[in-house]
């Protein structure tokens, strides 16, 4: 008899969707999430394209469904170490890193107030700092603080332990390993932003005020490092003249050979962030092709194009240099205009793409495509992949795909 239990690897939008759908269909679910919170990349966004609603929109509904259902067991700060067995009966080893804060945490913030140590915020891509005892972000689910083991001085300090009234902090927590039995596995480990520093001609990391599109999401986000004010990192100057560099690493054999699909729509979306905030701001989007497939996606493109202050230039930026006063100089060939042009901007956003996370699963014997995504046709029975692990997709399509894939996983449980 197969275990009526589905393991979901990754608690981002795809994993969350798969989890609630499976749970509501009557299966037990385990979510294994690497971060201390659920929601994945979506939690870092300011708005979704093309509806332009904030990500809590979709996330809160999913969290609510998980809470109401009660059949979903969540492991945060955890990774799957080993999967053995076969379809219907898998033994899964899960390793959990110490959070140093247990579920008694009420989110009162006293530990943060007491903590003297600082750490760079990976949630904000290093653009802000938090205390070593911190809440990952203000919408974090589960609402439970974390202590960064690397930044924390441990029992020699222990100021947070004194500050906590609920006995929620235990600095002697150790990594734990548990083994669970499941009937099916849905992998939803998602994507990482491609490392922009790898493109040695685009200035990321060497030229001031060159940022990535995911950093732009944080800057524009009300819970971001600038509380939603779009200013440049070097001097806090308002960004009134901004360039977007499309295909920064995508559709490029030297980096990511695939089209990451989301970057065109993301830049159009981010152009509107700037335009809404600063009525006199100018935006220039350098592109090879603007790819906005789909009726609503294309309408969104048309709408942004109507804005006189948003201009489009056909020609990929292949050189980014520092200009005086923190400005950024970009060079491209204006293909329609017929000459090489160099223009200066307050800030430049590299529309970096999706680095699939399938590579980390390679050791587990998961077959991959040439582009580094999971080759779903080659997966063993009872194991499924969903979302950006298979192909670059947006949030809406992730939700659709996860719903379909989880159906397959439930069927596999019934079949055994």
């Amino acid at each position, binding site marked *: 008899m197969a275990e009526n239990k589905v393991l979901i690897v990754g608690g981002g939008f795809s994993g969350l969707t798969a989890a609630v759908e499976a749970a509501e269909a009557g299966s037990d679910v385990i979510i294994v999430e690497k971060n201390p919170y659920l929601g994945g990349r979506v939690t870092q966004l300011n708005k979704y394209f093309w509806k332009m609603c904030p990500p809590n929109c979709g996330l809160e509904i999913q969290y609510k469904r998980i809470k109401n259902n009660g059949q979903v067991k969540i492991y945060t700060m955890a990774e799957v170490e080993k999967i053995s067995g076969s379809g219907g009966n898998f033994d899964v080893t899960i390793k959990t890193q110490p959070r140093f804060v247990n579920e008694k945490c009420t989110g009162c913030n006293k530990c943060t107030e007491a903590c003297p140590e600082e750490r760079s915020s990976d949630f904000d891509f290093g653009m802000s700092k938090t205390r070593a005892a911190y809440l990952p972000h203000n919408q974090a689910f589960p609402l439970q603080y974390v202590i960064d083991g690397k930044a924390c001085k441990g029992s020699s300090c222990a100021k947070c332990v004194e500050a906590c009234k609920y006995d929620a902090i235990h600095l002697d927590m150790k990594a734990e390993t548990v083994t669970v039995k499941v009937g099916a596995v849905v992998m939803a480990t998602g994507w990482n932003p491609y490392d922009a520093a790898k493109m040695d*001609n685009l200035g990321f990391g060497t030229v001031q005020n060159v940022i990535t599109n995911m950093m732009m999401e944080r800057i524009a986000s009300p819970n971001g490092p600038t509380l939603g004010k779009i200013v440049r990192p070097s001097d806090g100057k308002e960004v009134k003249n901004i360039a977007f560099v499309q*295909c920064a690493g995508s*559709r*490029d*054999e*030297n*980096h990511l050979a695939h089209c990451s699909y989301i970057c065109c729509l993301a830049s159009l979306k981010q152009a509107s962030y700037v335009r809404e905030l600063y009525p006199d701001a100018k935006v220039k989007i350098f592109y*090879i092709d603007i790819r906005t497939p789909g009726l609503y996606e294309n309408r969104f493109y048309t709408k942004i194009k109507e804005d006189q202050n948003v201009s489009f230039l*056909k*020609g*990929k*930026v*292949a*050189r980014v240099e520092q200009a005086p006063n923190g400005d950024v100089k970009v*060079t*491209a*060939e204006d*293909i329609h205009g*017929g*000459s*090489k042009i160099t223009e200066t901007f307050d800030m430049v956003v590299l529309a970096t793409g999706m680095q699939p996370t399938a590579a980390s699963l390679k050791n587990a014997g998961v077959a991959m495509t040439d582009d580094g995504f999971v080759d779903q046709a080659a997966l063993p029975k009872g194991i499924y992949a969903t979302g950006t692990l298979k192909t670059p997709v947006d949030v809406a399509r992730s939700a659709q795909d996860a719903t379909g894939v989880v159906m397959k996983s439930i069927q596999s449980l019934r079949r055994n």
Partner: protein
Amino acid sequence: MADATIIKPDLQFVKEIIKGGGESLKKCYQCATCSVVCNVTPEGNPFPRKEMVLAQWGQKDELLASPDIWLCHQCSDCTAYCPRGAKPGEVLNAVRKQSIKQVALVPFLSKIATDPKFIWLLFAIPMVLFYLIMPYRDVSMVPLLNGKMSYSNFMPVWPQVDATFMLTAAFAAFSALVGIKRLWATMAARSGAKGTGSPIGHVIPAVTTILAHKKFADCDVNRLRQWGHLLLFYSFAGLAVVTTVAIVYLYGWKFFGIQAFGSFNFGKSPYPNNDPMKILALVSSVAFAAGFIILLVNRLVKAGKAGLGGYFDWVFLLIVGGVGATGMLAWALRLQEMTAGYWVYYFHLVFVWTLFMYAPYSKFAHLFYRTTAMAFARYTGRDTK
């Protein structure tokens, strides 16, 4: 549709580019990274992005009439950064091959020089030629000169060597002149731009740019090639001086009855190793070898980024390398009094003849046509850097 432009692709031309080292041509998706990373293109209407689309669409006339295909020095920065592996540097090289063929006085000679199918003929012609005119096919019969080996006794300077090479050089020079004239006329007819000053006036700055290897200095990925090419270029120049002086040595003394002047030794070869002419020859040979090895190693090491090149490039390297290797080996063998040196010298003549004969038909033609195009680009204000 009154203003529609009908584009007639020359499919044969596209095929020839693909066959001639530009097999990656169709991968280009016109992102224009290449035009940006290129440091030698003019800012206005830059290359090589437009050449890629013109080549894909078989626009032979427009491509071959553009000085841009010759302004390209194949730094291969474009190839290294190309997101599609379309290798614009290699494609433009294949286009230049077509340009050489188009302006050739005798197109068949260009075929021999650039088509792998004719490699046997390329070397068979001079091998038969020199075999027929050599006086001693049994090298043990070659008389010694003052008790030592002498290549001028193996293959007499007159008429065998000099008559052959003078005729060959004259034909090559005539071919090059016709080619230059045709290339200029093609470019002028297409460009329509009015030139400034006399065309000849623009040749000098073009030549000084070439002499200083200024354009190569702008390359990033293939930076090392500047030194390789510079050494090879000046070793050729040095050897050209040596050849000229040798003529004076040989015929001058007869003319004026002078035997020697200081350490200059007039008369029949070989000359002692401390003769200034000999020293220049040896220095040039070392520079030649160094330059050649740099170019060869650079091409192999950078193949992943810059492309490996095609037959067009490799046959040229083979001829140039053959000239150098046989020349130096023949010299060494003569010093050792080894008669195998005669046959090495025979092959040296074969390689040198091939180099001369096909200069305006092989990759060597870049010397004439790039200079022409650079002068034309200056003349029409296209490239003033």
